[in-house]
């Protein structure tokens, strides 16, 4: 499944905006500093290309705008006027869902201790536990995943994977083009 080219174009446009910020300090940056700046601006650019339509992108932007290094700067530059609107939404969603999760988890623990599980159900409960465990890992990998319910998580994961692939395609093209230019 190839990523739509309009998404890539949008990403590239925003990424360029972000990278131009570093141009003045570019000479004094170490390789690892520049790498972090490139990566951060790419992530923020891809998230902003989703225009606040997905949870993961809003969560990524929200956490980046708290970053001390260049995060806040990139967010302001890349998002422009949308900056305030998008960062505000994420915090309110976070607070709401935190309460939901606390309530849910305390209920489950008590229930498990009191119930006696018959042998036949053991296998299916193990399967369920594995799914739960893997779901938790997935939640830690997708930005803002810990606040999502299962259906949203899968939907967000789908979008997140497509966006990552688009981001990688564009970054690879730029790296290849730069390399080619330097070798001739």
């Amino acid at each position: 499944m190839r990523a739509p080219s309009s998404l890539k174009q949008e990403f590239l446009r925003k990424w360029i905006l972000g990278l131009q910020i570093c141009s003045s300090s570019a000479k004094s940056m170490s390789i690892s500093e520049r790498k972090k700046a490139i990566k951060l601006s790419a992530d923020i650019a891809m998230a902003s290309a989703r225009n606040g339509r997905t949870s993961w992108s809003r969560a990524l932007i929200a956490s980046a705008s708290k970053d001390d290094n260049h995060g806040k700067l990139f967010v302001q530059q890349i998002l422009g006027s949308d900056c305030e609107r998008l960062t505000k939404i994420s915090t309110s969603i976070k607070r709401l869902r935190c309460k939901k999760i606390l309530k849910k988890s305390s209920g489950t623990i008590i229930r498990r201790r009191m119930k006696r599980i018959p042998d036949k159900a053991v296998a299916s409960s193990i399967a369920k536990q594995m799914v739960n465990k893997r779901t938790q890992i997935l939640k830690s990998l997708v930005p803002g995943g810990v606040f999502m319910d299962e259906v949203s998580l899968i939907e967000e994961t789908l979008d997140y994977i497509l966006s990552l692939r688009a981001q990688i395609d564009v970054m690879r093209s730029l790296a290849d083009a730069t390399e080619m230019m330097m070798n001739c």
Partner: protein
Amino acid sequence: MSSRRSRQAAGVSRISDDQIIELVAKLRQLLPEIRDRRPQKVSASKVLQETCNYIRSLHREVDDLSERLSQLLSTIDADSPEAAIIRSLIM
């Protein structure tokens, strides 16, 4: 079964099994490992595991590409014509 129950409940938070199955199928389409195998025999747990591995590998690629770009851009001789092109584009 539980899917019937959830459809009757009609609340916003109750989700049907069919919805989940459909989403998981879409997810499987994206995963390079599972796409080519026997379609119906893959468990949800396996799909989740493959998804996590795939996302981790995508993160690694972003990281590697950032590293590669950083090195490329730093080795460009500052006064060369190539640098001017790239500078006008991004840096």
